[in-house]
């Protein structure tokens, strides 16, 4: 390791901008954070490789961001726990290989009001973990005409796989749901597939 190596570059007035005039002026902090987020902070190579997060996909109901963005790892971890949006859908961004799950406000509200939220989260985990060819998952509240218009939480899985792949996946998923979701809750969930 070079003798002058520093984990982070020293903060100097020149680096932070000329407006840093005193201890009460914190505007330099925001600017330095912006620099860090866009990846222009002059970190040593080894640190840059480990401290910047993986590519993640950010989804949004109204304004879906389709490109992959490079953001700090700490933000990456926070986003995987769930991000709200103005459209009322809960957003869950996952690492690149997992599908983006979008839960409508109506479905979330119905699940919470009727004690089905635990099973919904389990269903989401099963779908995300098992669906290698599933691109996106939309969870909505639908009315089931076969059950006298009863409300059903429907997982719509959009997939890029073949029909044979999907049939196999559907069979596996049904077995998992049978094992992991209680019999009382299962009638309130439905799964349907959409093709790319």
């Amino acid at each position, binding site marked *: 390791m070079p003798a002058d190596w520093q984990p982070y570059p020293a903060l100097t007035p020149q680096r932070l901008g000329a407006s840093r005039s005193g201890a009460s002026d914190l505007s330099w902090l925001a600017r330095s954070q912006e620099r860090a987020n866009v990846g222009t902070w002059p970190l040593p190579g080894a640190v840059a490789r480990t401290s910047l997060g993986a590519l993640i996909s950010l989804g949004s109901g109204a304004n879906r961001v389709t490109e992959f963005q490079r953001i700090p790892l700490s933000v990456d*971890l926070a986003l995987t726990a769930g991000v709200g949006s103005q459209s009322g859908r809960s957003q869950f961004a996952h690492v690149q290989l997992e599908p983006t799950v979008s839960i409508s406000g109506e479905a979330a509200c119905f699940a919470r009001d009727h*004690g*089905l*939220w*635990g*099973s919904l*989260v*389990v269903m989401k*985990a099963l779908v995300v973990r098992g669906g290698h060819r599933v691109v996106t998952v939309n969870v909505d509240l639908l009315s089931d005409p076969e059950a006298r218009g009863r409300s059903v939480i429907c997982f719509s899985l959009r997939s890029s796989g073949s029909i044979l792949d999907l049939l196999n996946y559907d069979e596996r998923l049904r077995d998992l749901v049978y094992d992991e979701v209680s019999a009382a*809750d299962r009638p309130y969930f439905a799964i349907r597939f959409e093709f790319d």
Partner: protein
Amino acid sequence: MSVEHALLKPIRSELHYRGVYGDNAFELLGAPVPLYRSLVTHLGPFGVTLQNLKFESSGLADSHVSCGLPELNVGIRVRVDRVEIDFWRLHEIGADSADRIVLATWTAVREASDSVGIASHFVDLIMIAEILGGNCSALMNRYVMPPEQLGVVDTGVAFYSRPVEKDQQWVDVVLDRVFGQDSQLFVKVTMGFSAAEVAIDALALHVGTITNTTLDRVGLQLGTDGPK
């Protein structure tokens, strides 16, 4: 249901579970890797990943592996002497999911160390319920009449059972007002029982039975609305 029973519709509820070991399980936290592995395996269906696991220790008694399920508002702590599971929004996730989380946690703990034996279970069930066709003041007057000298006051009541033998099951019930909401009632049911009496896979049924039986004895009945 007799005519004197008041029907309660739970609005929100939380449950705190404590499962105490027969003996301290130092090996669980001394070499926690098997515990991490089994927690991820068995709680994976509930969304647990490595990010949700944390080892925390400020002293031996406080040492624990914590496992947070933020989407479900559930916190799990595996300590040297007990397992703690907090369901902060039980009304949202449902009793079935809560039961499955308890079972999965115990399965993970026992898989990590088969020497762990459960001695006793403790459960706090707290809920705020709507009193259907009644109000809290009238309900409380069944149990206690405040002295006239106090004027108009709100009251609460607590019933504590008296276990006379070691490991005997006990149940406490606290009924209280909800400030500013006379149509609502605060209910807290606390219970403890020996693990020898109840198998883990019958825990939820036992807790439900004790709760309903105890509330029935004090003239209350829980009603349900919707799928659950």
